[in-house]
């Protein structure tokens, strides 16, 4: 095939969008939008990398901070939520061997996340609304720096994403519990109890002969438990958005609520409790569940130490509700007992739960030697390495002594945040994309293995390298969320910028590879309605 033919019709013309079920189209829509927003987040990241070397004259400081505000949200909500939700809306019914409860609701989730992300991104781009994702009170009420109209759009965008998240959670739990048409009545309550971990918990207090079997598989249990945190987080963020709107409406009506009404420290506790349901909750639970699923799919074997893995997921869920104080170790008014118990001790449990997931996944892979080094396997190993680097970095900063000299430095965002998200989480998601690619495309072939190899190495080296150089700058005092005008940390920032460039190249290689695999017509076809009137996940003949 000529280059033009491949570009239009995909590798060997194997991908036919007309053969896709509505469910396959839904998943692929999530993937395409997730990748577009990932690309946007990478471009924003590169702008900021350049800015940290030399402020760009065409971008004033308020625009820089607007980019800084939108960047993590576009990355987490626009990209990661899209990829994760799309994958799980497919994987849960796939593993339970029944259709998704509502494809329509799945499409609403897709639309709300895609549109919501665009709206809050525009609020930053056009109105320069820049409270940062922390939304600390009373920052949003500081209308000398921010336009309340921009803030309103920002909050509306976030609210749309949260509504989409709620729809996702409903769809997941309904899919687990419902009885499809023509099926024997399903034990809804027992299925939900197994998914949440309640029946497993009861088993601890039963004699071994009376213990009940797990009704849902381990990966489904992981998705369900992570979804609990998605729901709680949506509630917190929606409430917070409403709170901020009250300040904005108050300002527009001539009432200044700036220094009244809400205690700043209480708000901080509230906000970080909610945010940690993502950072220390659903991300870690979803990732562990995804590792287990990938390990089982790659090896074709049962998971090593299944029951421990299942219990660890429940522990992680409870831990995620009690760790928020590690964000407030530098807040002197925060009670010391909360700093020690929640901030240090409970947080240290994440080393154990994530360490267990790491070990169990590796042990499962080890038992199936020899394995072929496929794309999904190498990206899974990359994801495991990312969390092996990022979690201990986080445990170190969650220490009263060390936090005093690390808080709000580049150490936090480098070796911890970016290595966790870019290397740990994103490489795990790439592994999922590679393994699901033939299933959701009805056997389309990857255009170039060489590009996939380049994608892997450039992403791995770029991600770890960027995190490392940011971390080195942080250890030498470089702060996050600020601008250095005199090149104080230029050496590290240039090296981090080069690594960021590698990440950009890795993404471009991957995106090009995927487009050439399915063809431009195929990409467009993903967004047209399916011709197959079925709730099946894949075509019956495929």
């Amino acid at each position, binding site marked *: 095939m000529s280059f033009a033919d491949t570009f239009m019709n995909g590798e060997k013309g194997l991908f036919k969008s007309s053969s896709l079920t509505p469910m396959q189209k839904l998943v692929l829509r999530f993937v395409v939008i997730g990748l577009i927003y990932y690309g946007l987040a990478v471009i924003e990241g590169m702008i900021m990398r350049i800015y940290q070397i030399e402020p760009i004259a065409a971008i004033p*400081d308020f625009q*820089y*901070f607007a980019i800084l505000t939108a960047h993590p949200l576009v990355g987490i909500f626009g990209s990661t939520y899209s990829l994760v939700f799309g994958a799980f809306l497919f994987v849960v019914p796939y593993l339970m061997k029944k259709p998704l409860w509502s494809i329509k609701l799945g499409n609403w989730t897709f639309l709300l996340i895609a549109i919501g992300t665009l709206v809050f991104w525009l609020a930053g781009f056009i109105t320069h609304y*820049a409270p940062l994702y*922390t939304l*600390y009170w*009373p*920052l949003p009420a*500081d209308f000398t*720096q*921010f336009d309340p109209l921009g803030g309103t759009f920002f909050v509306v965008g976030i609210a749309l994403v949260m509504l989409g998240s709620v729809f996702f959670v409903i769809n997941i739990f309904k899919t687990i519990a419902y009885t499809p048409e023509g099926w024997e009545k399903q034990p809804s309550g027992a299925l939900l109890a197994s998914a949440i971990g309640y029946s497993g918990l009861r088993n601890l207090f039963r004699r071994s002969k009376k213990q009940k079997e797990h009704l849902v598989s381990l990966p489904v249990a992981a998705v369900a438990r992570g979804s609990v945190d998605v729901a709680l987080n949506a509630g917190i963020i929606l409430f917070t958005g409403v709170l901020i709107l009250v300040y904005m409406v108050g300002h527009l009506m001539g009432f200044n609520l*700036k*220094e009244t009404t809400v205690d*700043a*420290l209480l708000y*901080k506790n509230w906000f970080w409790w909610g945010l940690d349901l993502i950072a220390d909750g659903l991300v870690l639970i979803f990732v562990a569940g995804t590792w287990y699923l990938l390990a089982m799919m790659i090896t074709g074997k049962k998971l*090593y*130490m299944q029951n*421990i893995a299942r219990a660890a997921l429940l522990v992680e869920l409870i831990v995620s509700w009690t760790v928020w104080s590690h964000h407030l170790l*530098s*807040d*002197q*008014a925060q009670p*010391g007992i909360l700093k*020690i118990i929640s901030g*240090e001790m409970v947080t240290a449990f994440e*080393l*154990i739960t994530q*360490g*267990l997931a790491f*070990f169990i996944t590796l042990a499962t*892979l*080890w*038992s199936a*030697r*020899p*394995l*072929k080094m496929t794309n999904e*396997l*190498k990206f899974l*190993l990359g994801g495991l*390495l990312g969390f092996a*680097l990022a979690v*201990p970095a986080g*445990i*170190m900063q969650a220490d*009263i*002594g*060390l936090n*005093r*000299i690390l*808080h*709000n*430095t580049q150490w936090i965002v480098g070796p911890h945040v970016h290595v966790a998200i870019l290397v740990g989480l994103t490489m795990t998601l790439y592994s999922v994309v590679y393994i699901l690619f033939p299933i959701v495309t009805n056997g389309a072939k990857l255009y170039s293995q060489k590009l996939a190899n380049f994608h892997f190495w450039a992403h791995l080296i770029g991600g770890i390298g960027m995190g*490392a150089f940011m*971390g080195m700058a942080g*250890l*030498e*005092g470089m702060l996050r969320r600020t601008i250095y005008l005199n090149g104080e*940390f230029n050496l590290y920032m240039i090296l981090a910028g080069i690594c960021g460039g590698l990440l950009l190249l890795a993404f471009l290689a991957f995106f090009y590879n995927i487009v050439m695999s399915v063809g431009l017509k195929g990409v467009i076809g993903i967004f047209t309605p399916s011709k197959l009137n079925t709730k099946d996940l894949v075509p019956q003949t495929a």
Partner: protein
Amino acid sequence: MVDSQMVLNGQTFAYTCYAIVIILLMAWFGYQITRKGKGKTVSHKFFYTFVVFLTVLGVSLHIVTYNTIPWAPMDLNRADITADKVFDITVQNHEFQLPSEKLLINVGDKALFDVTSNDLTYGFGLFRSDNSMLFQMQVVPGHRNDILWLFDKPGVYTIRSTEYSGPKGAQMILKDVVVVSER
């Protein structure tokens, strides 16, 4: 005495060693799983040993730092310690208001910085002339934000806000305003 620079050097060394080891371990693992194996599962003893190791590591980190980093216990018990000098500092409209042009401290003094914000959430940090950080804390409106620090060597420090408070916050810098000298 252990100071923040020494702690940072120690952390850099420890984390770098760990990162190299874990990267090499994963590279070795990636190579080995493509080799022929006997299909044996990993022993449960090895697994439980690993669990115990993680537990000990997680708990001991905080015990070790509490007993080796001097400011950690001092910070938690600062209400019971008498400061040699107290500096009341106010922050408002993105400006630090100091009690005097320079904050003068003698070597060996424990100085208390009591910082009040009248509007937004800020940060308060002291930085050496090479931009490295001595310490920082958050400054939250409506609450007491105080930090006690033992200065054991002479030096000149810059104050800057360590928390984002809008674009204006990036340049909240008072250069060389804290001076620590021999008695």
